[in-house]
């Protein structure tokens, strides 16, 4: 009886009993070689953008766990949750993931912990359209959906190429009202603005900004990509800004700009339309 109990305990403690079909090696965005039981049957994604990318390549059915912030596509909302920004390691263990997918630098601490617990951790980190397209191909290969990954990657590539706008108006894009947050061209949001023909008034990537810097650059177009819709008239010098005088302040859906996923192409196409408009 005791021996049986011991046996039960030992079996209970061991890692997944069924042997993996095969182990394949993949190189992720960190340049790290990750060994994954392939094709992975249970994938956990710990940030919304990788969840969306996994669904985009057709790996949705293999997604075993997501975070409470993963709300796109809507099907993802019904998946088991492993946490919010903090991963609950008991829930993660219960899901027995073959691979955990994330962007390493935005989840550095959690990712390192997950890796130290022996899970395979695969990172994609797209900062440009090229990298989004590349990430779709990589995730297609990782999840056993190479053909579908290639298909969505090629269609995204075609959409991006179709826009190819010449440099047009100067642009200020605001993704956060308090503190004022913007981005230069060196982020995926900035890449979308640049490809759509916007000449960004700031350089660099994501950054907080002093309003005076916007006033002195007096952009021709202002894109507001967050939820605050009122109170702008209280801003210093608002009425005298070129963009305001020419009625070229646009409130755009933040979802089309805030994620490095195929949805960003919606933002790209919308921005290109906006930048082509003539001053009334």
């Amino acid at each position, binding site marked *: 009886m005791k021996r049986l109990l011991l046996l039960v305990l030992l079996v209970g403690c061991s890692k997944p009993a069924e042997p993996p079909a095969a182990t394949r090696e993949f190189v992720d965005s960190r340049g790290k070689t990750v060994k994954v039981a392939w094709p992975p049957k249970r994938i956990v994604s710990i940030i919304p953008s990788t969840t969306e990318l996994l669904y985009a390549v057709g790996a949705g059915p293999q997604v075993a766990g997501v975070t409470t912030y993963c709300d796109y596509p809507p099907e993802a909302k019904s998946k088991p949750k492993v946490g919010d920004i*903090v991963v609950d390691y008991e829930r993660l263990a219960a899901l027995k993931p073959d691979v955990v997918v994330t962007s390493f630098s935005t989840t550095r601490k959690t990712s390192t912990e997950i890796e130290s617990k022996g899970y395979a951790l695969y990172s994609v980190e797209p900062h440009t359209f090229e990298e989004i397209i590349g990430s779709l191909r990589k995730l297609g290969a990782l999840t056993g959906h190479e053909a579908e990954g290639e298909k969505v990657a090629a269609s995204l590539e075609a959409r991006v190429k179709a826009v190819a706008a010449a440099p047009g108006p100067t642009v200020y894009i605001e993704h956060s009202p308090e503190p004022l947050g913007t981005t230069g061209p060196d982020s995926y949001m900035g890449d979308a603005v640049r490809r759509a023909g916007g000449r960004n008034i700031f350089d660099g990537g994501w950054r907080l900004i002093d309003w005076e810097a916007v006033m002195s650059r*007096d952009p021709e177009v202002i894109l507001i990509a967050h939820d605050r819709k009122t*109170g702008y008239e209280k801003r210093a*010098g608002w009425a005298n800004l070129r963009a305001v005088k020419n009625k070229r302040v646009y409130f755009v859906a933040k979802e089309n700009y805030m994620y490095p996923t195929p949805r960003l192409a919606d933002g790209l196409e919308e921005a290109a339309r906006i930048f082509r408009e003539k001053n009334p």
Partner: protein
Amino acid sequence: MKRIPSLVALGVLIPAAAGAIALSIFAGETLTGKLTRDIVLDYRLPRGILAFLVGASLGASGVCFQGLFRNSLADPFVVGVSSGAALGAVASIVLGVETTVFGLAPATGCAFVGATGAAFLAYAVARVRGRVPVTTLLLAGSAIGSFAGAMVSILILFNSPRWSEVVTWLMGTMAHPDPWARVKVVVPCLIASAGVMVIHARDLNLMLLGEESARQLGVETERLKIFLLGAGALAAAGAVATCGMIGFVGLIVPHVCRRLVGPDHRMLLPVTVLAGGVLLTLADVAARMVSPQFPLPIGAVTALAGAPFFVYILRQRSAKM
């Protein structure tokens, strides 16, 4: 440290205040951008004025609480008012409140409610049989402050997507696109609260003798506590609601001023108000000169510059003793 006559202090501080605000017109990004009338009159000037008013409010709140509690460690933070304001603002951010409160932006209005709420709660908790012992009031305030602080931490933990908004708010900032609108919030708070404090300056002096003595000398101490607690909370609420948590000014400025001009609140009050304003305005000017594009958290700047200065003053005093 040698006492200096109050009138001399005022004579230095009034021009200093004007100078600091004037200086703030010249701070900012001038090289790469073009300077327009709007930038000077609609942004830099009101920003200087806002910094002055917020510093003055924090100074007023600190000197009022330190006098009322006869405790030089009392400041808007210790009394729980700042944490109450923080809880209000952070809750509004996290819960996504989008409606305006008293015509103020959501976070501002809720900070206001939080600050005055914390003060009222501390008073209600400390009240026993119609009496509110100051020590109990101070302890109740700090307990409520800790509680509100813990709630803030929990709220942040459950709502990380907007963490940058919350963190900026908790570190305090002077970089707002709408400085005039914020000046309009701070001015009535400062005028009302400073007015109440000035009217009760003599009573505050008598409170220094102890509550019993003050009462025997004809001070209505219970009424005084309500007025001064309300005034201190109102001043802090205006400051915290518009510019976030700016530490140090409310604690150190009254302290240093008391050493400079002595404990008579009739002089100490205006001196502290002016000194707090000058200090914060200069801190903001310095912050903008160091980093014209990227807004530095002003609370960190005041603490970085002020803490060593305070240590110096403490050392100087201990050396004499």
